[in-house]
């Protein structure tokens, strides 16, 4: 007697739907991966050129992208020795962009004008101040 039994139409449908799910997940992952790889492109850093009062302005930004995916499948038996299988996966990612400078080209030459983010600077200053205060208090207690 063979261990392999013929698939019932319901089992065949289930197997087909599982294959479709896997296929669509792989396609989605590939599409997301392509979008992620596009972050490394030079066009992600330099924006559309702007013409203003005889000057050409090119915005420049820093772009950071983080992404991760995972997937798995497994089979098992329950207490009644009924076989079952399952597939699952998940992923996540985030992209950050921050203006760094603008390139201004005029009749008299090309200049790079920096963009300073004061909010980030204030946050860094307050965080550092917090660490200094904590270290100082620890030193005083340690005497």
């Amino acid at each position: 007697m063979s261990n392999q039994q013929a698939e019932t139409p319901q089992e065949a449908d289930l197997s087909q739907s599982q294959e479709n799910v896997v296929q669509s997940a792989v396609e989605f992952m590939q599409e997301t991966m392509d979008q992620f790889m596009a972050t490394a492109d030079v066009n992600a850093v330099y924006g559309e050129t702007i013409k203003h009062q005889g000057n050409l302005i090119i915005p420049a930004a820093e772009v950071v992208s983080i992404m991760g995916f995972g997937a798995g499948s497994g089979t098992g038996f329950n207490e009644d020795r009924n076989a079952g299988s399952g597939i699952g996966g998940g992923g996540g990612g985030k992209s950050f962009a921050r203006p760094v400078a603008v390139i201004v080209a005029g009749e008299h030459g090309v200049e790079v004008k920096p963009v300073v983010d004061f909010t980030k600077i204030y946050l860094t200053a307050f965080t550092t101040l917090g660490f200094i205060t904590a270290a100082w208090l620890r030193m005083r207690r340690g005497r």
Partner: protein
Amino acid sequence: MTFENHSHPPIRWHGYQITPIAQSFRFIPARPFGIIWNRPFSVQVETPAGEIYRLPIIDRTRLIQILIFLGGLALVWILKAINRKR
């Protein structure tokens, strides 16, 4: 882990040829996971006279952040040294 420089197609304006350059850092240890950091690096300028020079793009925000952090570390180190002497 790779560092690569990518050039933007040159832009012509008032006789100047401007070529923005970006630098990308890729860290992709396994295919479904990765980090890409892409930043503006410099601008190559060709003047109407044919002179070519490069203008670096400095991230002032990051520079100031690093200076504040290093200043904080130096201050803690000085405080520690003063505390030890007492």
